[in-house]
């Protein structure tokens, strides 16, 4: 009886993509538009190449769009003449990381820049290196090749701006999928979905990264899509259609950015939990959809290994090199990763002396460290943000206590989300540990955790609900205006730093 009911529900909810799109509420589209506008605004605020690693990602796109080949580690690690000129004319190295240095500010410099960009135009060489981006998978860069090629006659800065706008569209997708995720994960209170989604759309760090040329922008969207697919699967069961969508989202993640490897184990665990549920309710038949999802999800990894084997290269060279570089005992590594996020435990070595990583790296980082992390708010902003965060945490706790019974019923789903989060955190920790102690928190940058933004949206939504039925909408209004103010102050701070 139960089995039949679930299958019927699953079938009735199966729909064509067009029908799915038509069922998306208007509020979701508005949130999407807000995210796109916000990221687009950031894309016009931050000077070219003054976002983390943007020169490298641009170099990758240029290489791919103009030669059809990705960059190679064996090539000389220098930018092509055109990008090299642009960086020099924009005084990139004297501005980057130097809080007192403003962007170029005279008409004469602007004139020289425009003339120089025309005279220094040059095609990418057949083999090129893209610095830190060289190892990344090509999907995001292939997408960015479209705006790059659209304006091939324009100068480098025009192409860069168009590429930034494509990232802004991906930012909109992140908001859309976050809304849909909240609708599945927290059914019942409609307005809470809007609060959570606007919390993401108006996050200044998210908007800044989504207004830059960086595969993080696509990873955020893919991650939000995976959260949506999984929450839908946990709520309605995995149909053939939703299995294909889930598998495809995971596969796209693999092709987007290497750091997706941190999210993948949790996503596969979710499929395993869904398979177990399917087996319990429908026997072998219940395993079909999770198997389809897993097969599609694993396909890029399989294709990658096959391609490496066919070209006589070591398929796991990156992984073996990373394992080889790992130093210290397992306990030391675990201790380091723990302390990268949380206060150290009594009796353990202090790997972060003079620093509260929870507060200074992650909390302050989320509140805002813009550009190349060199543009910060005045100290009082972080303190005020902490007070707001405590209030939000209080409301969240209230709501969690009130809905603890339903939490218990969703233990499997919550375990999957926890695994996704922990996987990401462990990957960041291990990557940082590879270069520790020369650099003690190389990957201690909040952007690496932003693929988990949909979970933060859940926190915002629950906190708004925590204010109760009577005061909830009022609290929600306040929270949303606070989000907007935070974003606006971030923009003003960045404008002051670069153009003041």
């Amino acid at each position, binding site marked *: 009886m139960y089995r039949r009911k679930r299958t019927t529900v699953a079938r009735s909810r199966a729909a064509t993509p067009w029908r799915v799109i038509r069922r998306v509420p208007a509020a979701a589209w*508005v949130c999407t538009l*807000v995210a796109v*506008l*916000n990221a687009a605004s950031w894309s*016009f*605020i931050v*000077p*070219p190449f003054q976002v983390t690693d943007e020169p490298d990602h641009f170099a990758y796109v240029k290489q791919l769009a103009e030669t059809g080949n990705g960059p190679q580690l064996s090539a000389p690690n220098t930018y092509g003449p055109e990008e090299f000129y642009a960086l020099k004319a*924009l005084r990139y190295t004297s501005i980057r*990381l*130097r*809080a*007192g240095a403003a*962007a*170029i*500010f*005279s*008409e004469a410099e*602007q004139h020289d820049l425009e003339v120089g960009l025309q005279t220094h135009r040059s095609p990418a060489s057949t083999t090129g290196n893209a610095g830190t981006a060289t190892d990344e998978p090509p999907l995001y860069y292939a997408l960015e090749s479209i705006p790059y090629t659209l304006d091939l006659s*324009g*100068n480098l*800065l025009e192409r860069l701006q168009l590429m930034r706008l494509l990232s802004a569209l991906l930012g909109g997708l992140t908001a859309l999928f976050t809304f849909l995720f909240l609708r599945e994960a927290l059914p019942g209170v*409609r*307005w809470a979905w*809007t609060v959570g989604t*606007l919390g993401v759309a*108006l996050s200044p760090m998210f908007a800044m990264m989504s207004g830059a040329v960086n595969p993080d922008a696509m990873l955020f969207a893919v991650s939000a899509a995976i959260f949506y697919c999984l929450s839908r699967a946990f709520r309605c069961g995995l149909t053939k259609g939703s299995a294909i969508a889930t598998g495809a989202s995971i596969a796209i993640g693999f092709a987007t950015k290497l750091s997706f490897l941190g999210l993948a184990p949790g996503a596969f665990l979710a499929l395993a939990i869904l398979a177990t549920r399917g087996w319990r309710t429908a026997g072998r038949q219940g395993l079909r959809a999770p198997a389809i999802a897993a097969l599609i999800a694993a396909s890029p990894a399989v294709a990658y290994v096959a391609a490496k084997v066919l070209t006589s290269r070591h398929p796991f060279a990156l992984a073996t090199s990373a394992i080889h570089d790992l130093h210290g005992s397992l306990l030391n590594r675990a201790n380091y990763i723990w302390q990268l996020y949380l206060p150290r435990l009594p009796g353990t070595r202090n*790997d*972060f*002396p*003079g*620093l*509260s990583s929870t*507060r*200074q*790296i992650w909390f*302050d980082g989320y509140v805002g*460290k813009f550009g190349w*992390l*060199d543009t910060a708010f005045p*100290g009082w902003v972080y303190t005020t943000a902490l007070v707001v965060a405590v209030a939000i945490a209080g409301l969240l706790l209230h709501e969690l206590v009130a809905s603890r019974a339903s939490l218990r019923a969703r233990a499997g789903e919550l375990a999957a989300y926890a695994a996704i989060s922990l996987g990401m955190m462990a990957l960041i920790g291990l990557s940082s540990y590879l270069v520790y*102690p020369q*650099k*003690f928190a*190389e990957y*201690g940058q909040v952007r690496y955790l932003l693929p988990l933004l949909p979970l933060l949206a859940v926190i915002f939504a629950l906190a708004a609900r925590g204010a109760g039925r009577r005061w909830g*909408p*009022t609290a*929600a*209004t*306040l929270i949303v*205006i606070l989000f907007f*103010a935070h974003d*606006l102050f971030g*923009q*003003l701070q960045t*404008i*002051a730093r670069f*153009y*003041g």
Partner: protein
Amino acid sequence: MKRVRITLALALAIGLAVVVVAVLSESPLTVIAKNDAAGMETSLGWTKITDTRICQEDETVPGGTIAIRFSLYALTGPPVEASVLYGDRTVALGERGSGWTGASVTVPIREVARSISPVTLCLAATTTAEPMQVLGTYTGRQTAAYEGPGEALGGRMKIVYLGRGHDSWLSLTPYVARHMGLGRAWSGTWVAVLVLALMLAGLGLISALVLREFDV
């Protein structure tokens, strides 16, 4: 429900007032003076990890200084304490918490009323997780910055003295708007106007959404 409308109107009004009064009426920090090492910036060496104290003699702190910017690079900088010494006497003190990133750290100090010279500037960090790179220009050992007695660095550290500007952000708006239009694709002041329009459009959409979704 009236409550949502009132909250929205109040929040927007207060927000606007804060932006105009607290932010735009403020004057930005401006550079009053730079020391003699403010030319080409090179690495002078790395600090120790524990009990770092870098000092530099023969500096002049101009009157009106409210912050000093030291040229040190760190990815996640430690808490630092700056002191201005005139002979043995400490004439100004300031501190900055950890977590700063970049090639300089700005430490606020109590306003120095009039120019003081010669002074020794010291920057101390008791605990650091990573060494900091000192930036400046090469000089002889006699005039170089030092980290502890006899441990001269490669030269003098670049130091910038900051004071409060005379113009408010509001009066600087046209200048900032012009500046925003430079160094990018399709240059022009319209870039600032576009950014403003994008944010106003966003605010309009958010307000409409709040009234539609929350006004239950």
